């Protein structure tokens, strides 16, 4: 399931719902991205961030997230997957994104969850505008994100073990 929303989400309730009633699930891996109060964008970084605004491309965002989710489910034997991504104004400490994968086996859950966030980071059309004391600053894409996503591209069989 994918959701793109302005509102916050209830992490515990979302994770519970993913495995509820499915006793074939042996492991649930999740990752939550949070707004840091320190700039992590390209360049020097380290500047204090007040709030940020997440812009996205309605329509294409949902398509890309659905595609990423479908690819994860093709690569690993998963019982459930979830991607929630917020947009709009967010404060330090706020939840930005949740990705989760449930599987009979933990390796599949871990790898699928890691894949979901790595691909989302490089493919889903979101852009962060940081409100720094010096004014709004668009966050630069990080080369480490591209490298992280590239790990998964060689072949679907590689990481599925």
């Amino acid at each position, binding site marked *: 399931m994918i959701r793109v929303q302005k509102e916050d989400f209830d992490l515990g309730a979302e994770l519970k719902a993913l495995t509820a009633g499915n006793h074939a699930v042996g492991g649930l891996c999740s990752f939550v*991205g949070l707004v840091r109060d320190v700039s992590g*964008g390209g360049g020097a970084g380290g500047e204090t961030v007040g709030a940020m605004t*997440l*812009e*996205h*491309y309605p*329509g*294409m965002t949902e*398509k890309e997230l659905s595609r990423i989710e479908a690819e994860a489910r093709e690569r690993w034997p998963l019982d459930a997957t979830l991607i929630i*991504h917020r947009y709009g104004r967010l404060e330090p400490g706020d939840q*930005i*994104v949740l990705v989760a994968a449930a599987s009979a086996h933990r390796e599949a859950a871990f790898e699928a969850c890691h894949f979901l*966030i790595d691909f*989302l*980071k*490089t*493919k*889903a*059309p*979101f*852009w*962060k*505008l940081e409100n720094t004391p010096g004014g709004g600053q*668009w*966050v*630069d*894409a*990080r080369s480490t*994100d591209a490298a992280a996503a590239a790990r998964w591209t060689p072949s679907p069989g590689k990481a599925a073990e």
Partner: protein
Amino acid sequence: MTTSMKLLYFAWLREKAGVGEEDIQPPAGVATVAQLVDWLVARGGGYAEAFGDRKVVRVAVNQEYVSLDHPVAAGDEVAFFPPVTGG
């Protein structure tokens, strides 16, 4: 039958171009994304600045990532944006 094309700009491309969304009627010679960008840049002002470094511009036609040599046609939705920074 529509003869116009819908253009979308996001993040700093939107700010530099000075427009978020517009319907345009490109001339007959515009058959690819690259040609569309050439035509936009020729309009000068914000467009020239937005497309100053084409290597960092990402393009989607009808909400699918494409490269600069991808064809464009009337009725298409063409979006320009910087590398994504979500998650």
